[in-house]
């Protein structure tokens, strides 16, 4: 397509600054041709309507009075004349054109053509079809291509989904993308092999575990599934865990992921089966629902996460105390075992044990005393355990030192 045709068809958006260099590159024309066509088009447009005003920028080159060469871009023909008068041996060329007033802000600096092209390619990949056409001219602010908008479009999806757990965002983005990342990382470091292997294993075990409840629909299996599958899930998000080095937070997030993933992965058929089982377990569903509603919880989702953690107690003792600390007084109120369905149809069991553990954490005086005694005893045993050889050698090494021959024989 020729430049003239493009101008006639209004394919060039003069709302944004149109660089002559862009046009040179795009239409493979000489400067003279582009200049003439542009001038003709601008004149035609300005003649057609008095409202159409175009703002031109000129590239000015000349020698300064102190002898130095100068390249500058000036706005408008008035300033161009001033600069031409200032400089010796000055030359000027049309640099850019845009509609006067209301146009987008100018590019801050002159950008070489190739660089702009590279940026455009990246931009188009990210923004896709929504990229405004004006960008193709290569005139854009860096702020227009900010990543947060991209991220927002991605994260907006999960928020609309049914399970909107706070930890879902990393989880949602992880499975496909992080696999890809892991594949990339595999090429680079040996560490990726170690992190990838357990994930694969976990997948296998998870598949095996998932097959079990389908074949046998006993309640035991259902209850077993939670810890096992969560165990599998625990291993699965290793990429995220790798990314987060901070142990407590990582373990916490993985805990959250486990509870979410359990229900995310169950197919609709499986969910129905599970629901049936739940109802059997609970007995009368209405009552339990009422109790669930009666409980003063900030969110049922949070309770669910905690509950799933409870099931994992034998496996993860380290993660547990922190969770419970966060839960605070709300959980302390529950003293007896309660099993009920919450609004979303999840089985929630609040155990008396839960109340016991914080008390462990807080350490009543007697418990503290016994714990201290135990610790002292343990310390004593460990002291006893320390190998006598080591203590001997420890005694020996500081006692004996190697003498020097010069201390025995005098120099001649």
């Amino acid at each position: 397509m020729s430049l003239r045709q493009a101008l006639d068809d209004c394919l060039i958006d003069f709302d944004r600054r149109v660089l002559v260099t862009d046009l040179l590159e795009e239409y493979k024309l000489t400067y003279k041709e582009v200049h003439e066509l542009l001038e003709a088009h601008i004149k035609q447009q300005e003649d057609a309507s008095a409202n159409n005003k175009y703002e031109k920028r000129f590239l000015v080159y000349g020698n300064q009075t102190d002898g130095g060469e100068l390249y500058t871009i000036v706005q408008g023909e008035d300033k161009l004349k001033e600069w031409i008068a200032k400089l010796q041996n000055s030359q000027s060329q049309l640099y850019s054109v845009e509609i006067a007033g209301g146009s987008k802000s100018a590019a801050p600096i002159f950008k070489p053509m190739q660089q702009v092209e590279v940026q455009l390619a990246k931009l188009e990949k990210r923004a896709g079809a929504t990229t405004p056409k004006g960008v193709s001219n290569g005139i854009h602010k860096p702020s227009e291509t900010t990543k947060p908008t991209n991220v927002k479009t991605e994260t907006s999806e999960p928020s609309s989904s049914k399970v909107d757990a706070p930890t879902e965002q990393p989880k949602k983005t992880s499975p496909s993308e992080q696999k890809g990342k892991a594949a990339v990382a595999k090429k680079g470091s040996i560490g990726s092999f170690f992190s990838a292997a357990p994930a694969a294993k976990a997948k296998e075990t998870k598949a095996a575990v998932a097959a079990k409840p389908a074949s046998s629909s006993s309640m035991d299996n259902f209850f077993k599934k939670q810890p096992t599958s969560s165990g599998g899930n625990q291993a699965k998000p290793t990429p995220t865990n790798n990314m987060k080095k901070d142990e407590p937070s990582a373990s916490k997030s993985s805990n959250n992921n486990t509870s979410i993933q359990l229900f995310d992965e169950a197919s609709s058929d499986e969910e129905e089966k599970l629901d049936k089982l739940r109802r059997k377990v609970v007995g009368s569903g209405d009552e339990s629902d009422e109790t669930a509603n009666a409980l003063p919880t900030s969110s049922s989702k949070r309770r669910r996460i905690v509950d799933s953690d409870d099931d994992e107690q034998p496996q993860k003792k380290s993660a547990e105390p922190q969770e419970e600390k966060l839960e605070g007084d709300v959980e302390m109120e529950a003293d007896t075992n309660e099993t009920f369905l919450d609004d979303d149809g999840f089985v929630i069991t609040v155990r008396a044990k839960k109340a016991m553990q914080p008390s462990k954490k807080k350490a009543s005086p007697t418990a503290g005393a016994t714990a201290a005694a135990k610790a002292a005893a343990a310390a004593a045993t460990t002291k006893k355990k320390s190998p006598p050889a080591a203590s001997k050698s420890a005694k020996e090494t500081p006692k004996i030192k190697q003498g020097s021959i010069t201390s025995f024989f005098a120099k001649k």
Partner: protein
Amino acid sequence: MFEARLGQATILKKILDAIKDLLNEGTFDCSDSGIQLQAMDNSHVSLVSLTLRSDGFDKFRCDRNLSMGMNLGSMAKILKCANNEDNVTMKAQDNADTVTIMFESANQEKVSDYEMKLMNLDQEHLGIPETDYSCVVRMPAMEFARICRDLAQFSESVVICCTKEGVKFSASGDVGTANIKLAQTGSVDKEEEAVIIDMQEPVTLTFACRYLNAFTKATPLSTQVQLSMCADVPLVVEYAIKDLGHIRYYLAPKIEDNET
């Protein structure tokens, strides 16, 4: 002019092997009485003293006292070029900066000579006082080498305890403890297998295994080794070189650190 000729190159080879692990360089002091070398190891824990008497050589001529600083590794390399039965002759001019080592086969058909650059070594010579040692143990050199090798597996240090019953070598480490007792032999057919203890008073001293094992490189030189000990005095490990002289190693004992 200095010239010393030995009937068998193997002796010189063994001497070099006995000292080159402990010393990188050494100065051979040549005089009309023979050749002497004294040098400390780099850590100044042990001292090597080599004496080769002039009458032990087939031919010995030293017009002026001469000190020849040599890189012992280089010399050992040259000596490896000799056959064991070759005659070896060392020659050096007065104030020369090189020494010539010549090997002649027994039938004189092959003669090879090597010239080695000498070094100016600024090494300290220590005065070794005459000492009456409380315990002098003579034992088979092979046995001593074996004991040192075995005990080095247990600890870095060996305790040598000499009493009238015998001599005990002990080592204690993480693995456990090891004790090797050698009693004085009553009567033996072969003199080189005898363990003879000459004790004035019991002595117990601790030494570094590493050095003892380095000393045992001289085992091929002699069938017997003599250990001379006295409280708070360096151990002397002496290997006699038959008809030629001796090599003595002095090793500072490990002492109690009063500071800790």
